[in-house]
């Protein structure tokens, strides 16, 4: 019998090792696996490479990993907003490296890794400093830059519902990077709001088929994420 459900977030992230590369889903607050990231903080693995669109908020979850000095390198597209202060402090001290990747290129590099594609050529970033040192190829008279696939040891995801086979659904903007990251890591761990019986999810409605998922944990949302707040208090 297949049963990918585990009881606690701690159990789910127990095998994350020092130096691991970890994808973390989410854009803004929706889709961020805040409980799994907090469990990783407790677990203690360090010298991590994190792949995420941004750089977390304030001092908890992903920002907590920066605060704790656990991230060697961040691969991101948009890490420079006011509440990304924990990353900013480490970056400016030279303690965390940054690889800045255009957002569409970031998701496509992840998609390529998950789909077994050895990279791709894109017009994005041609002629800019983000294409410096990369291969340029002319296709149909236009310049394209080569981008390599981006793979990870672990992916930490957030979904809405799931079953013991690992099938997942997302609500609204929670989806973002999550279903693509689910395809591109050796070990894929999802925190879900509701564990439902096998067969309860309509086959048409499943966004991430269980084949991509290794562990799921049913848990309520991290209390500091997903709380509608005014712009003033959020940033």
């Amino acid at each position, binding site marked *: 019998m297949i049963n990918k459900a585990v009881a606690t977030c701690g159990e789910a992230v127990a095998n994350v090792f020092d130096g691991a590369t970890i994808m973390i889903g989410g*854009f*803004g*607050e*929706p889709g961020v696996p805040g409980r799994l990231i907090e469990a990783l903080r407790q677990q203690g693995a360090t010298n991590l490479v994190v792949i995420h669109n941004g750089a977390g908020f304030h001092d908890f979850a992903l920002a907590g990993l920066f605060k704790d000095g656990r991230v060697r390198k961040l691969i*991101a*597209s*948009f*890490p*420079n*907003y006011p509440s*990304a202060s924990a*990353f*900013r402090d480490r*970056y*400016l001290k030279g303690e965390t490296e*940054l690889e*800045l*990747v*255009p*957002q*569409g*290129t970031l*998701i*496509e590099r992840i*998609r390529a890794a998950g789909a077994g594609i050895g990279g791709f050529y*894109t*017009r*994005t*970033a*041609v*002629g*800019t*400093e*983000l294409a410096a040192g990369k291969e340029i190829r002319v296709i149909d008279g236009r310049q394209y830059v080569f981008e390599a696939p981006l793979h990870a040891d672990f992916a930490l995801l957030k979904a*809405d519902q799931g079953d013991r086979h690992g099938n997942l659904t997302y*609500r*609204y*903007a*929670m*989806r*973002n*990077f*999550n*279903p*693509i990251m689910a395809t591109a890591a050796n070990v894929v761990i999802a925190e879900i709001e509701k564990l439902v019986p096998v067969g309860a999810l309509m086959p048409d409605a499943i*966004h991430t088929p269980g084949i991509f998922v290794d562990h799921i944990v049913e848990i309520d*949302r991290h209390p500091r994420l*997903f*709380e*509608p707040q005014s*712009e003033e208090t*959020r940033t």
Partner: protein
Amino acid sequence: MTLTRDGIAYRVACDLPDGAYVNLGIGIPFLITSYLAEDREIFIHSENGILGVGPVAARGQEDPDLVNASKDYITLIPGASVFDHALSFTMIRGGHLTHAVIGAIEVAANGDLANWRVPGQKVPGVGGAMDIAVGIENLYVAMTHVTNKGQPKILPACTCPLTASACVKRIYTDMALIEVTPEGLILREVAPGIAPAAVEKATAAPLRVAKDCREMDVPLVFNGVELRQ
């Protein structure tokens, strides 16, 4: 009299046609959602994975899973769809969206765009700017004509790091509407009461005044918001 930030947004909104699929950047472009003509069906795209963004959610009515790329809590219009990031950037990079309106730090005479990094910025961030600039055909810039120190932002060549080359099609500012053509910049419209010579003076790049250059049709006030100042 120059346009307010809302005035610039109003003027851009007038040029978005029925059936347009539009990506809006943060800042002035986001204000456009308040001025879309009611007799046109226009889909607003948000790069986190939404087509059919509606008005900002009323206080107390926010859905925690529903934000736009600026991380505002939003609503959806009837017919909206949600999807993952790969499909969202397929819409952008694959040229499926018809229009994008974005802010800029500098625009060059040939349509080069610089809008992601100012000199001396300590932590860089690019987001989807470079993908949008290469992928969307009708790329419109909405910005103030000069910096807050009065320096021109429309230049012979960009001095800040480029977002993409030769991508901007039109520039909407508080003073003017300028079209970017293979022959250079053409002044199409001026804000009410602004002389073409004043626009030329505030523009560092060569600017040709169109024979039919006219005043913009922007009211003083719309729905209680001042559009001119």
